[in-house]
């Protein structure tokens, strides 16, 4: 019983992080219709930015995450202009492989710049935990979760109430109509891409206190992020939150029943099954 409860608590904590990391991917697809296979690499970039903010400026990664957000937002907006915009109207094939090329470039660019070392930060709360009646809540996970919840809430408010957010949603729903009412859809795409990769970088920074950063760290998250966004409905940011929490809890609970080795297998089977049983529902999610 305690074990099950513990697993659910752990699953929710890690799932919150999966949610914020994946919502960026979902945002990019929802607004631009591009599936970004390089997206997980921006998690790595965010982790590196937060690492250097810690190593050089002495900033805690939780604060460094804001720097990561800003830096990667700007970089993403630049990349959108140079690489993504030319292929917006291209067939999915070209989009997929441009982002695959970007993935290789980012991963190996990091290797060239920073070397292959594994880097990690030291913080005071790293090994702290709360004990609540037999349930253990580890502090770095809790902090990462809280940061994700706050940023998720801000994103939701931004998309719903701000002028830019509303314009972005309009661009997603009908780019032609958005243009007619005077929205600069090009600019919206740029903001969406920057924000999408920025959020993922932010997510990478907040998990740095309990993980290590190295050039290939992103590859651990590629399939995971896609599972999250597909479970929640590709393109839906709210769906990514549901999907993130679901994946976190499924991972934690499946570890109780199955060997850890099969953790990903369970995830993939759920993923394929959802698409098999509810393809219409998910396809509907995509058009929204």
């Amino acid at each position, binding site marked *: 019983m305690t074990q099950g409860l513990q697993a659910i608590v752990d699953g929710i904590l890690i799932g919150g992080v999966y949610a914020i990391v994946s919502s960026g991917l979902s945002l990019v697809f929802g607004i631009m219709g591009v599936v970004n296979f390089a997206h997980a690499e921006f998690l790595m970039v965010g982790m590196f930015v937060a690492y250097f903010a810690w190593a050089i400026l002495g900033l805690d990664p939780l604060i460094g995450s804001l720097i990561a957000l800003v830096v990667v937002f700007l970089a993403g907006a630049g990349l959108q202009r140079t690489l993504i915009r030319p292929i917006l109207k291209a067939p999915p*094939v*070209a989009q997929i*492989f441009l982002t695959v090329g970007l993935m*290789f*470039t980012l991963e190996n660019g990091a290797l060239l710049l920073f070397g*292959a070392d594994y880097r990690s930060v030291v913080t005071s709360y790293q090994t702290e935990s709360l004990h609540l009646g037999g349930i253990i809540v580890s502090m770095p996970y809790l902090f990462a979760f809280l940061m994700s919840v706050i940023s998720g809430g801000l994103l939701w408010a931004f998309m719903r109430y701000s002028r830019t957010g509303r314009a972005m949603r309009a661009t997603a729903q009908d780019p032609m109509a958005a243009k007619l009412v005077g929205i600069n859809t090009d600019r919206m795409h740029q903001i969406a891409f920057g924000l999408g990769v920025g959020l993922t970088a932010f997510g990478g920074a907040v998990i740095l206190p309990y993980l290590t950063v190295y050039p290939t760290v992103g590859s651990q998250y590629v399939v995971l992020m896609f*599972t999250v966004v597909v479970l929640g409905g*590709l393109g839906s940011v709210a769906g990514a939150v549901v999907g993130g929490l679901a994946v976190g809890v499924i991972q934690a609970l499946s570890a109780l029943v199955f060997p850890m080795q099969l953790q990903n297998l369970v995830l*993939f089977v759920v993923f394929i099954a959802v698409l098999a049983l509810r393809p219409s529902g998910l396809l509907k999610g995509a058009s929204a």
Partner: protein
Amino acid sequence: MSLSSSLGNAGTPSLRTLPCRPVLLIAAALGMAGLVPLGLDPQGYTLRVLTLTLLFAAMAQSWNIVGGLANQISLGHAGFFGIGAYTSTILLRDLGVSPWLGMIAGMGLAGLAAAILSVPTFRLKGHYFALVTLAFGEVMRVIANSWSSVTGGPVGISVPFAPNSLWMFQYNTVRPYYYVSLIALVLVSVVFWRIKTGALGYRLRAIKENPDAAEVIGIDTYRAKLMAGLVSAVLTAALGTVYAQFSYFFDPDTIFGVASISVRMALIAIVGGVSLTFGPIVGAFFIIPLEEISNAALAGRAAGLSAFVYGALLIAIILVKPQGLLALFGDLYKRLRKESSR
């Protein structure tokens, strides 16, 4: 056929008077391809790279049936590839079955896997299809990794050493593998061309243009896609056996690799020109030597530089000519002709 007609449309009299010229060209290229190994070290590096190029061209051609003709971008063909490699190797290791028979068994299993996979995927399009197939490849990898008693698990599996026997499909030198790969490429290309120009090809094209309209005029879209998927999977599995016999050793991460197999197969077809008969061949002769040259020239200098350059070139190709190299060559050819006619 399609090539000759498209060249004919270009309106050069010299070409129109020679309608069989593409056939002659192909025959000449094949003859050359058959003679090349005789001038090379039978165990050498150049021959090995050429063999891998032909093998990957054949793999990309199999992918082209699904990814090009049926317009479904699979990122999980490593799943079928690995089924072929594992089936023949396990049968050989445990029962001493000839890899040729093991190849047939592997093709059967891959067909079965493709049929099962078609149930959740047949209605999916574009990115969704890509993602499910990506997950399929990963599922196969995890199974091979965990099912150690049969597959050998993460330690990998070695092909028992029994060189120089046609029946056991094993040779001490690279040369026979070169010819096997060349024959495989020709066979897969013929299958591709027959499908493309045959009834199935027309049906697939109709579905590609407008799926709803295709349904209305009575095309069984599920059946057409399933057929393309089955043929592609079965051919990929057969090539998996060739690969296993050529490399003698493989492990789950290699054979079910997302970047090293699944993405590469698709990449080669796309770089060359998707859904064109000669696309994968041009792509393979560009990509595989490029990987080799960049590795040879750059890897000693800075870690990661060669892979970085590889990624940057990929981006450049897609930005400059998303339709692939063949289209790029076509443009250049046209421009040259214009210049010369002036």
